[in-house]
């Protein structure tokens, strides 16, 4: 990977900033201008668990083929943070460019002959051109956008129209930003040979104009709006908070009653995650589509309630936007290490249906789907996203909504149905699929039953009887098997090859790119991305159909592989884990290296 040269519309820009210095807008501007040209682009934000003064990076990858994983390379580094200068210098891919603020002399001891170092007196330029202290800090960021625009030959009109749109209501700020862009652009034109051998070109491709830039949390929040979720209870935690913010934002836009001005939604900021989950169960029991969003520590705290939801059979949706590590870990880094703990959250014989979106688009659709599954199966559904999907800026096809969609509310008896029944028993499964009709409070006196996490029999009554208890937990396994046929099937690519990749969630882009590269190098493979737990038969079939399985995932303990070993027939001898778990999103290069190393071992043996 890292030996490839950047080419037109294929390059990675990394910007090293200091937290709290207002770089996000500038970096977004740069990314968006590439997007407007039609270039597939992804922006990844590596930020600290801190508000001000610590290192933060933003990485923009342009990829004409639409590969949206972390590239693992840095073609243009904008080193705005003296603290990380040495590290940033080192991370530039040979042949790349480093831009630094030449207002102050740079450390000459830190040298590299294999890259081009470009100094731009950013602070000096800003001090000379902007009167206010705030603008001097902020505009530095905009100036480097101008520099990059010159280097990559980005059409300035695109940037200008972006600025116009952004500051439509704050015209006073428009001029300053325009000036900053121009300063940078002119300086670069004047002092360096612009453009570079590779540039950002207008391209045309399917999806151009309709594609959007979106993060997974916003998409999932929007999905909950479209699913008709009305109750949301949550407690702030990185990286899940923005999912709720997304839901809230779109509720405010679309869910105010036009007649009364009142809210057709109810968001409760809970006192903690235990309470958030309790609220979701209370609301789900009461017939509202309800959800929460959290991350690892929150799921741990919710374990008791998750077991309650499983055993008392209450619909609920929980988004687990995974972050890095055991315990508090690295809250602003990504990982897929809650797979096992989510699937079996809580004590006792408990198991949960999980969905695994891979990008914002899927976050949107799976979010909506999760509510249907929750109500159909009467059980908590855990949607496992991660920080990379949830908080980074992804190119995505336009989201659409089928106007004919009607929520699957599952088996809920109406007043009329209850009126006709002589007696109602909560947990009698007449359909044979393990799901028994439920009733909602307030519907009809005959519908009343007692929901409990303690032992109950099929009639809903309290029991301590061995057989009655066992009947209920055995039926829950029938329901579990029903779920296998209802959850999203895996997505497979290719067929007939001996090698099969298996991956999950945000590994997708890296694996797909790695597969393509490996194929070019003569190693062709098939690929399956698992999208739900429990696994459907297709997952087993894929495993059976391959002589060599690479399970690629982002955790230390091979949790996806573990889940497959537990629930499927997975031959360990033909299976190799490729594990990435340092908190950064995985690169295709990592996968390729792992495969090559394994194949080399195989040959050596």
């Amino acid at each position, binding site marked *: 990977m890292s030996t490839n040269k950047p080419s037109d519309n294929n390059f990675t820009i990394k910007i090293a900033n200091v937290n709290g210095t207002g770089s996000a807008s500038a970096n977004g501007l740069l990314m968006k201008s590439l*997007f407007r040209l039609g270039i597939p682009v992804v922006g990844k934000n590596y930020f600290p668990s801190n508000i001000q003064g610590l290192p933060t990076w933003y990485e923009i990858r342009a990829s004409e083929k639409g590969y949206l994983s972390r590239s693992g390379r840095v073609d243009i580094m904008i080193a705005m943070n003296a603290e990380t200068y040495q590290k940033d210098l080192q991370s530039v891919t040979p042949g790349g460019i480093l831009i630094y603020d030449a207002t102050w002399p740079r450390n000459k001891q830190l040298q590299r002959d294999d890259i081009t170092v470009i100094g731009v007196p950013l602070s000096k330029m800003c001090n000379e051109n902007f009167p206010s202290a705030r603008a001097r800090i902020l505009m530095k960021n905009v100036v480097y956008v101008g520099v990059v625009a010159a280097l990559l030959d980005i059409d300035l009109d695109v940037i200008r129209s972006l600025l116009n749109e952004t500051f439509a209501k704050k015209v006073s700020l428009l001029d300053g930003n325009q000036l900053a862009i121009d300063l940078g652009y002119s300086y670069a034109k004047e002092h360096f040979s612009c453009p570079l051998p590779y540039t950002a070109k207008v391209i045309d491709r399917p999806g151009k104009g309709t594609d959007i830039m979106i993060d997974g949390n916003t998409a999932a929040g929007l999905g909950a709006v479209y699913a*008709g979720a009305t109750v949301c209870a949550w407690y702030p935690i990185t990286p899940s908070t923005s999912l709720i913010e997304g839901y809230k934002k779109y509720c405010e836009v679309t869910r105010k009653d036009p007649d009364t001005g009142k809210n057709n939604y109810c968001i409760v900021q809970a006192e903690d995650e235990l309470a958030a989950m309790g*609220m979701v169960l209370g609301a789900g029991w009461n017939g509202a589509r*309800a959800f929460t969003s959290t991350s690892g520590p929150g799921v741990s705290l919710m374990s*008791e309630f998750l077991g309650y939801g499983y055993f008392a059979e209450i619909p609920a949706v929980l988004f687990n936007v995974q972050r890095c590590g055991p315990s508090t870990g690295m809250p602003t880094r990504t990982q897929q290490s809650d797979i096992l703990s989510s699937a079996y959250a809580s004590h006792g014989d408990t198991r949960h249906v999980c969905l695994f979106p891979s990008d914002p688009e899927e976050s949107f659709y799976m979010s909506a789907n999760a509510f249907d599954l929750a109500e159909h199966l009467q059980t908590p559904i855990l949607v496992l996203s991660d920080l990379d999907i949830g908080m980074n800026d992804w190119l995505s096809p336009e989201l659409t909504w089928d106007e004919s969609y009607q929520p699957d509310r599952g088996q809920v008896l109406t007043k009329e149905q209850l009126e006709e029944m002589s007696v109602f028993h909560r947990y009698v499964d007449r359909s044979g699929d393990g799901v028994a009709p439920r009733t909602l409070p307030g*519907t009809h*006196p005959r*519908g009343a039953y007692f*929901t409990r996490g303690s032992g109950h029999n099929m009639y809903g009554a309290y029991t301590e009887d061995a057989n009655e208890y066992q009947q209920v937990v055995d039926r829950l396994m029938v329901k579990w098997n029903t779920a296998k046929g209802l959850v999203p099937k895996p997505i497979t690519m290719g067929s007939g090859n001996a090698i099969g990749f298996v991956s999950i969630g945000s590994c997708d882009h890296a694996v797909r790119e790695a597969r393509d590269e490996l194929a070019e190098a003569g190693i062709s493979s098939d690929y399956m991305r698992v999208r739900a737990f429990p696994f459907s038969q297709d997952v087993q079939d894929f495993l059976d159909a391959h002589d060599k399985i690479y399970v690629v995932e982002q955790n230390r303990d091979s949790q996806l592989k573990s889940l497959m070993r537990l629930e499927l027939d997975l031959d360990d001898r033909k299976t190799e884990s490729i594990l990435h778990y340092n908190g950064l999103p995985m690169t295709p290069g990592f996968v390729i290296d792992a495969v090559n190393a394994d194949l080399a071992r195989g040959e050596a043996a």
Partner: protein
Amino acid sequence: MSFMKKPTVRHPGLPRNDLGLTVRDYEGGMSTLCAGCGHDAITGAIVQAAHELSIPPHGFAKLSGIGCSSKTPAYFLGASHGFNSCHGRMPSVATGANAANRDLHYIGVSGDGDSLSIGFGQFAHAMRRNVNMLYLVENNGVYGLTKGQFSASADIGSTAKKGEENLQPPIDPCQAALTLGASFVARSFSGDKEQLVPLLKAGLQHRGFGMIDIISPCVTFNDHEGSTKSYSYSRQHFHKAISADFVPPSETIKAQYSEGASMPIELHDGSKIILRKVDGAYDPTDKAAAAIYLRERQSAGEITTGLLYINEAQQEMHDLAGSSDTPMNQIPYERLNPGSDMLKKIQSRMR
């Protein structure tokens, strides 16, 4: 107490409420609590209050945590949905249920262990949110169901008992409720139906969080060592299978006393508490005064009962949130779905 099925015979002579229902229609299953348990008396008062209010039984939802007290929703309002949640977590479940449907009457039943120990955070925050519900702390100073450990609440037999635990200052649910924002705070005694039923009715009609601390003696685990009437007999046996091996049948303690009066009550273990009923001159709308009065009586060794504080003006959770009048669980999907055009519009800002 008995395995016999509750008779379902209708008593034609029983008085009917505005809905034409008798008190039987508000009853629940047979209690499995100890004979004489204060909690059973509260159950009876709830049945009476609900009946007198002429609310249809399925217009209630009853929720609880875990404990002897939390079992009681099974024994009243058999035609209402019930939710026996996790230990200490009823407040959050009730909050979510209320978020989903603001139109039902919510009765939350909890114990002192459930509310003041494991559930104290949730208890506090449900009050702070002013969730529209009636919340009962069936307060016996012990963990009944786990066999008698001390709880964090006022040790109702404290004058007669000694021991390490007593030295920890108890948490008074009423003082806590005043500090934490409840809009309706009351206290009563399980054996004082005359006071309890009107308070329950008032709490159910209050729009907001109504907290009633109900002193409810545990007949089984109030036999601390040193107590004169200690059930020490069975303890002397060398073999303990479970500690509450012998539970002699007891009588529910009853109390009747008038407004403004104080009443000493002898508990099952021979210890005494003194209840003081607020009188007509007491102003329950003045929070600061209420807090001061409570403290004063406490210093005098008395436990104040009655409606201690009420604020009808304080907005309840949905009012604060600006929720639609239609309950969340009843808004048709058509009104929730922003439609595909809106989706296009939303995305137009993402390019």
